[in-house]
């Protein structure tokens, strides 16, 4: 579904990613893990068009999207939840959800999606008139996931959704992702939280210093020597 081939990217003159290649098949959950500063955020920003890729190619469903602006990429069915729960703080929960469906013109579809999101996260319905800044951290995470579902994405990219959340809530988020995946949404999960993310992933990649180092099946990676030594401390 997504093929990233020898992509380099960075900020201005500073190159961060070096010939990064990986692929995601339809209906998979793929996890990209790596330490802080490895370039994970840079990579997903490049995929969704927030950063220009210097070379290489990014194909979504066979079509080159490497040079498209973010709004075109969203229209094609790729949706990203950025790092740090980026809600629109001074808008209501309902307005946040409506923004998620910005690319969808059909009002009935938007209504249906909203009902679906409220079914998954009933607390959002209860608080739909509140300003998003008044939600708790966990609720804000639900809001950004719900918001991204409003666009009916085929590929959902999450940048460190577990960051700063209590373990119970992390578990809930991962459960939700598994369910969303079962409903047919392909997922790219970028995490430093290696145990949790690899436990739900079909496959995983390790990104270090802007390069893909290791590739493997989700749970099998947990027994990889390098990962054990560097990330799990065993």
């Amino acid at each position, binding site marked *: 579904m997504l093929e990233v081939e020898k992509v380099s990217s960075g900020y201005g003159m500073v190159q961060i990613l070096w010939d990064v290649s990986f692929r995601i098949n339809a209906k998979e959950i793929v996890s990209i893990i790596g330490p802080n500063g490895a370039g994970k955020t840079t990579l997903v920003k490049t995929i969704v*068009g*927030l950063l220009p890729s210097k070379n290489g190619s990014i194909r979504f469903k066979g079509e080159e999207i490497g040079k498209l*602006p*973010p*709004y075109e990429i969203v229209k094609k069915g790729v949706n990203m939840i*950025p790092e740090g729960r980026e809600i629109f*703080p001074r808008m209501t929960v309902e307005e946040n959800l409506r*923004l998620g469906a*910005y690319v969808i013109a059909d009002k009935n579809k938007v209504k249906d999606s909203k009902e679906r999101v409220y079914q998954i996260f009933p607390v959002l319905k209860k608080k739909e008139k509140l300003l998003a800044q008044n939600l708790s951290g966990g609720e804000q995470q639900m809001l950004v996931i719900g918001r991204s579902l409003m*666009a009916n994405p085929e590929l959902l990219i999450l940048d460190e959704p577990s960051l700063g959340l209590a373990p119970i809530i992390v578990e809930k988020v991962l459960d939700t992702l598994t369910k969303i995946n079962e409903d047919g949404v392909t997922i790219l999960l970028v995490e430093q939280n290696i145990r949790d993310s690899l436990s739900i992933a079909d496959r995983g990649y390790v990104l270090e210093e802007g390069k893909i180092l290791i590739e493997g099946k989700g749970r099998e990676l947990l027994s990889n020597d390098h990962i054990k030594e560097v990330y799990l401390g065993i």
Partner: protein
Amino acid sequence: MFTLSGIVETLLWGVANGCIYILLATGLNIIFGVMKLVNFAHGQLLMIGAYVAFVASTALGLNAYLAILVAMGAVAVIGIGLERFTFRKVLGTDKLNEIFVSLGLIYVFENAAILLWGNDSQRIVSPYESLRLSLGEVAIGYDRIFGVLIVIAILIALFLLMKKTKIGLAMRATSQKSDTSMLMGINIEKVYIFTFALGAALAGVAGALYGIIFPFNPYIGALPTIKAFAIIILGGLGSIPGAVVGGLLYGIAENTAVYFLGGIWQDAIAFALLIAVLVLRPTGLFGEKGE
């Protein structure tokens, strides 16, 4: 000396003048809020608006109030050109680049106006010029009343635009978080063009109303810009209600100062207010905490 009717009249005039400031400050604040762009040439858009309305009412023979619409449209188009061909090139680079572009534009507009219309003062002749509404000893010109009504109508339209339309939603989202807005599928360049055109259109209307009430020349843009900055700092950066309340308060304060202290105080009050607000409440009356 100071009479009750004098004070009431002063307040009414303050409201009427405040309306022009409200339009200018609101446009400036929308552009700042959405684009984070500080346009020091905003007052020159007011000046151009006054001249466009002048041309429309003299050369085309339009009613002064229809000429307002022409000014609004023409200055909106100028705004689109400015965004597209000047500010877009420097947006998001060094803030100094944006500041120097806008400072340069002040001279471009002033000199263009001098070239086209000369240095002399002009005025837009309104058919209602000699009509006054008298309430006891207080009299206020029809033109000022119409000005206030027009501004109220525009503010209601603006409120509906921001709250009820998709472009309004996109503008509010972009003003809060531009990167995340792009991830929603918002074409941010379109939002910027629309925002700048809207802010410019408001300045165009402000200019036409200015020209109906006051005589004007190519240099009238500078002071209103400073006043509009004082108002948005008073009301809160990025806040539309803040610009409205700030503009009203400012108009009243200015006229009150003139009435009680004399005409030389008219412009000093802008700077006094600016300094007072910056010292006492740096986020403005309606300002958000820094984000």
